[in-house]
């Protein structure tokens, strides 16, 4: 399994945001994308996921098991700015839905909620949680079904110090498991031994 970007260029609303981005990530490796606001970190992640077309260059994905994961999108968990959870449903119902929809069950619901340290909120409506708690439940969504690639866009937005450390440990465990992480952030994630890519933007 390998994720490769070759001379990748992206644009937003017809304006080029970046071009000539190259990287190669192997199993067990992480890539931290940093850069100023508007330098195209989120756009890069969305292009890698396949939500946006690349304006030039290409993303190549060599899967170990092309049958199960034919494309980057199929092999990825994408954690965007939104948490993709419904406020009217309980935490458990939300996670259960994503587990059933995504398939490839990994951890149990209870276990995943335990991993992000929020066992007491499982039956509460998602809308009752604080911003940080919402983010942590959204992180638990990465654990309930298995995907080798995690695409994380500002994953620690709203998290406190302890949760950041906890999340760093979860990411470490995913990498040790042979997974790939591509994370866009401007806060250090506390992840050692990973590649760094600094987006400079076009201006």
């Amino acid at each position, binding site marked *: 399994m390998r994720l490769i970007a070759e001379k990748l260029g992206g644009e937003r609303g017809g304006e080029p945001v970046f071009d000539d981005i190259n990287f190669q990530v192997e199993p067990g490796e992480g890539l931290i994308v940093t850069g100023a606001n508007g330098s195209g970190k989120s756009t890069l992640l969305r292009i890698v*996921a*396949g*939500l*946006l077309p690349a304006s030039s260059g290409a993303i190549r994905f060599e899967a170990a098991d092309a049958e199960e994961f*034919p*494309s980057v*999108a*199929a092999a*990825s968990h*994408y954690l*965007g*700015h*939104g*948490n*993709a*959870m*419904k406020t*009217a*449903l309980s935490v458990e*119902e939300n996670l*259960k*839905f*994503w587990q*059933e*929809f*995504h*398939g490839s069950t990994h951890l149990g619901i209870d276990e995943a909620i335990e991993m992000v340290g929020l066992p007491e909120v499982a039956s509460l409506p998602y809308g009752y949680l604080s911003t940080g708690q919402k983010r942590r439940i959204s992180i638990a969504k990465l654990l309930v079904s298995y995907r080798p690639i995690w695409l994380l866009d500002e994953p620690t937005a709203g998290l406190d110090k302890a949760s950041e450390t906890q999340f760093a440990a979860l990411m470490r465990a995913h990498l040790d498991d042979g997974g790939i992480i591509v994370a866009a952030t401007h806060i250090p994630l506390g992840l050692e031994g990973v590649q760094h890519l600094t987006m400079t933007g076009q201006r």
Partner: protein
Amino acid sequence: MLALFLRDLRLGIRAGGGALVGVLFFLAVVAVVPFGVGPDLNLLARIGPAILWIGALLASLLGLDRLFQDDREDGTLDLLILSESRHMLALTVLVKCLAHWVAAVLPLVIASPLLGLFMNMEPLGIAATSLTLLVGTPAIAFIGAVGAAVAVALPRGGLLVSVLVLPLAIPVLIFGVSAAYGAVNDPNPFLPPFLILCALTMFFLVLGPLAAAMALKAGAD
């Protein structure tokens, strides 16, 4: 897929889902007509099926614009699009349409016999109108999905969705009402317009989700 259906159904029925709003609107539209046209019972019975159909059409357009908008705002839509290789996006859209129909439109069909009494319709006419509504309203949901997908990125897309959807829903209205008339007025046939109505629903069952899926994919940003 079943999980998605159940989730959308729950969201539609729980607080804030707005399933009852449609029924209330339907009730309001049908209840004011006798005041407007006067107490001529024969006239009311004659225009009854048409009023029920127009009321149901307008009521089912309510809330249609939210079909994908909530999912887009909280990021769910991105994940639905990314799951394309496991769940074809058109199927995902179809399941969402069906859940929307069960939560928001089926109550209208169930309420329509009661509202038919308001219009002094005879039992056969009421039964025929309810049956045509049952068969015809899914088509409106499938057509509406296309409008909702096109307008998903617009913050106030509600009216635009209705304007986009109405011209396409007109054939459904025409054949629905003419089948309902045919059941009570003797020379007019019931079966041919009813079968065309079934055909329209099946046609849009395929075309609507496919077109909506294409619009959603093209609109991702």
